Each structure stands twice: as structure tokens, then as C-alpha cells.
């Protein structure tokens, strides 16, 4: 079978009329490019985040790393020693999880609970909060840890016995769970069983999918690539409910008054700090650090700075270290 290519099989030169149209079009493209450049240039003096609704996380936050502890007992030849010599902690994390690990486009800094803990751990090991975040898809975290691409994973990494066969978990350092969000005023969906027979929105490749299947096997699941897409889909009625991690949904519900969270989390996801499998020394070290910042009140400050900006009241009690199956 011989294939001819469009470029080759078009023997005719462009006719003058079309050539004119094409040129005119190029003019439009050029004008658009110019106006883009203009847009970009004319507003370079703006401070940005004030113009962004819902993102007013503010610059007045206290720098937690300044007063954070630094370890004095790093054994020579340990993983921590290597990290210290390198001068930078490599963290597996996200850029697009508001309140947990979200990149601020204006400063490029990654903000949130997970990101702050990462910086605190870096300060503890190295003496300064030097962190490099390797953006990792959730399916690849085990591989990233085992082949040494990252030192630790701070990424809503739920501790499970299955995962514990491939990675070591320090912590848990935070306990979250999946919650159900609906449009404001929805009265028929209050608990997971109510999802039966409904169309439920979930983030692609998130733990929400198996959880929904378990709670309501006949629910129809529609998945989208990111949280704002899921929210938009919910608002447009492409599903009656949206199941997502509580921390993520808290931020969204706070920002968008047309959706509301129904009930309490119906799963319990203890977040752990992922470490290389078998590195008992580092696991113990990280657990000590966690104990240290929990006792000193730094943990509560981190919470206040992130999730505490959308939840009223005092910081909750952190989960007991080693309490989750898989983290012993």
C-alpha cells in the first residue's frame, strides 16, 4: 500500500485569492502575538496574588523554618548524612494540591502542609530549608523511592500494609479522609451509601475511585484530570456528587460558596512520610523529628498556616506515630 503525503500530493500552488487570505491570517496571528506581548509588558509592576480570588494566602505568614530545630545526632554514613552533604532534600510531591502542596505561580514557591513539612525536615537534616520537589504521579512513588530518585515522599501518601511492602513509612503525620461534596442545597446525599445509583465525580487515578466502588458499587464514576475540573463538572451537573480528599475539598468549598461538603470523612487516610524500604535508621530519625515538632507546637503552626486558613478552631491532635497499620 503506497501512501502519499498531503504535502507531496498537493501539486497545485496556492491560488492568489487563498494566498491573500493566508497572509491576512498571518497578520491576525501576528497582531495577537503583539497584543499578548503588550499585555505581558504593560502590567509587569502589578503585585499579583491580590487579584486572584481564593488564593489570598498572603505574604504575612510567619516563616516557620526560622525557629525550626536542627538535628545534632546525624550518624556518619547514614542516608541523612548523604542528604546533608548534598545540601538539599529531594522530595516527591505535587504542585497542584491546594493547602497541601500547591505551587504559587507568582513566587514559584510550593505552599501547603506537605510542602512545609518537607522544608522543616530539610532544615532538621541540613540546617537550612533547601528542598527540591520532584513532581510525581501517585503510581510511581514506590519506584521513585526504591531507585533513589527522591529521598522522601510528602504527598497525601496514605499508609497501607500493601504499600508498606515496598516502602517504609514514618508517621503518620496527618489524618485525613475522603468526603463527599455536592452542590449547595442538595439534601439526598449525606453519606456514602447515598451515592448508590448516582453519577459520582472523582479525580482520575485517585483513591476516591476504589472507595466509591466499595461504598456504592453501582454508582457511575466520571473522572476528570484535576480538582478545578471536577468542581466545574459538579457545578454543571455532570454528576450529583464529588468525592475527594477532605483537605482539598475544604479549600474548594471555602472559595466557592455554591458547593458544600456533606458530612464527615468516610474513610481514614493516615498520611505517612514515604522512605526507602528497609531504611530503619532514617525511619527512626524522621519519627524522632516528627515527635520533636509535635511536642514543640511547630506541627500545630504548620497546620494553622495551611489547613487552618480554611478550618476554624484549634489544630487537631496529630495522629499517634506508628499507629497506622503499615507504619509500625
Amino acid at each position: 500500500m503506497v501512501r502519499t503525503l498531503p504535502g507531496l500530493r498537493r501539486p497545485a500552488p496556492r491560488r492568489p485569492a487563498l494566498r491573500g487570505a493566508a497572509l491576512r491570517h498571518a497578520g491576525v496571528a501576528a497582531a495577537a502575538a503583539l497584543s499578548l506581548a503588550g499585555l505581558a509588558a504593560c502590567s509587569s509592576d502589578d503585585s499579583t496574588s491580590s487579584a486572584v480570588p481564593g488564593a489570598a494566602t498572603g505574604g504575612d505568614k510567619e516563616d516557620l523554618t526560622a525557629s525550626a530545630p536542627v538535628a545534632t545526632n546525624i550518624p556518619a554514613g547514614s542516608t541523612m548524612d548523604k542528604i546533608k552533604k548534598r545540601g538539599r532534600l529531594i522530595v516527591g510531591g505535587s504542585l497542584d494540591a491546594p493547602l497541601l502542596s500547591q505551587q504559587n505561580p507568582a513566587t514559584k514557591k510550593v505552599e501547603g502542609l506537605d510542602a512545609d513539612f518537607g522544608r522543616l525536615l530539610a532544615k532538621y537534616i541540613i540546617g537550612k530549608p533547601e528542598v527540591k520537589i520532584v513532581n510525581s504521579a501517585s503510581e510511581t512513588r514506590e519506584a521513585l523511592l526504591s531507585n533513589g530518585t527522591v529521598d522522601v515522599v510528602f504527598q497525601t501518601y496514605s499508609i497501607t500494609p500493601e504499600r508498606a511492602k515496598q516502602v517504609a513509612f514514618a508517621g503518620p503525620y496527618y489524618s485525613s479522609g475522603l468526603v463527599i461534596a455536592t452542590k449547595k442545597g442538595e439534601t439526598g446525599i449525606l453519606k456514602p451509601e447515598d451515592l448508590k445509583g448516582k453519577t459520582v465525580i472523582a479525580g482520575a487515578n485517585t483513591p476516591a475511585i476504589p472507595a466509591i466502588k466499595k461504598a456504592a458499587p453501582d454508582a457511575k464514576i466520571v473522572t476528570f484530570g484535576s480538582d478545578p475540573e471536577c468542581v466545574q463538572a459538579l457545578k454543571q451537573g455532570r454528576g450529583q456528587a464529588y468525592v475527594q480528599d477532605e483537605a482539598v475539598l475544604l479549600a474548594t468549598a471555602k472559595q466557592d460558596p455554591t458547593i458544600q461538603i456533606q458530612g464527615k470523612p468516610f474513610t481514614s487516610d493516615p498520611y505517612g512520610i514515604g522512605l526507602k524500604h528497609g531504611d530503619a535508621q532514617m525511619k527512626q530519625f524522621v519519627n524522632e523529628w516528627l515527635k520533636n515538632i509535635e511536642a514543640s507546637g511547630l506541627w500545630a503552626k504548620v497546620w494553622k498556616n495551611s489547613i487552618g486558613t480554611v478550618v476554624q478552631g484549634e489544630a487537631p491532635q496529630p495522629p499517634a506515630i506508628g499507629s497506622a497499620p503499615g507504619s509500625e
Partner: protein
Amino acid sequence: MDVITRHLGEFGDGLLITVELTLLSLAGALVAGVIVAAMRVSPVAALRAAGTAYVETLQNIPLLVWLVLAVFGLPEIGVMAGLFTTAVIVISLYQGAYMAEAVRSGINAVPVGQGEAARALGLTFTQSLRMVILPQALRTVVQPLGNIAIMTIMNTALAAAVGVVELTAAANRVNLAEAQPIWIFVTAGLLYMALSACAGLTTGALERKLAILR
């Protein structure tokens, strides 16, 4: 291997959606393509410009962006359609731009004498296009149409990103549950190859049947 037999239903459903997406989109693309190609050779400058703008805009923005924009943007301008319908419309229009280019080069491949003869007989622009040029142009388009069909099959996979559970999304979901990626993705790949082979055979047969001997 039994991963596949256990999830035969999911694969079957996914395959069916992929086939439906492909066939409906191709039909839509053919309609859009012929209309736009006709616009691009018409005597009306505005139509020609609109045709060019259509092809340029559609071809120069990734299909994934179009899909996301359509799924979330259309309801905001008051057009609410299901995910499958939206995907069919977007893929039709997108492939329509490529189809228009194929049809236009088909029109250009028709010997000038045919057009002159049609005009000499007193046919109007529409008549000569409809009765003389297009029937011949469409025959020469059969082969690029095969390529566009294969491209469409592959592009339907992107509908997975906006929540349509077609073959790729189905395979991904089975893999999430079973974690046996090799078998699952190889099966999906084989199914896609089979689909493309069908498209190739069909257009090949069409081509032999419709070929104009010159």
C-alpha cells in the same frame, strides 16, 4: 492472562465506545470537511476567509485543549451536552479541519478541463462543484481518508481525559484495580491495531472500487 477474561466486559464496553466515537466523528468530519473545503474554493471572499480561519484555528490548538474547553466551557455559554456528545462534536470538528484539507487537495487534483467543461455547459458554481468536481474529488480523497480514519481512532483516546470511558480509559481503570499493566495495555494496543486494520481494509476496498482509471 485471566485479567483480560475477567474484565472482558469493561474492555468490550470501552471498545464499543471507541468504535462509536470514531464512526460518529468520522461522519461528522466528512460533513464538516466537505462544507469547509467548498467554502475555501467559493467565489465569496468572506467564505474563503472563514474556511481558512476554521482550518487554522482547529488545527493549531491541541485536541486535548479543545476537549477540555468544550466540556467545561460550552455549558457556560448555555450549551449543555453530555460528555460523549461533546467529545463526538469536538472530534468531528477537529478532524473536519484535516478532512477539509484532504478534500481541497482532492478538488485541486481534478483536471482543470473538467471545471472548464462544466462551466462551458453553463453550470453554476454550486452545480459544477456538486455534479462534476466533488464526485471526482471525493474519490481521490478515499486514501487520505484512511489516514484520517486511523488518526481519528487514535484521537478518540483523548476523550479519556474528559471522562469518557473509551478503550484507553477502560484499560487504565482495569489496571488501577488489577495492577497488571503489561497484559492490560498490550490488549488495548492490539484492539487499537485491529480497529486501524479494519479502517485500512475498508478504505483499501473502497479505493479499488472507486478508483478512476486515467
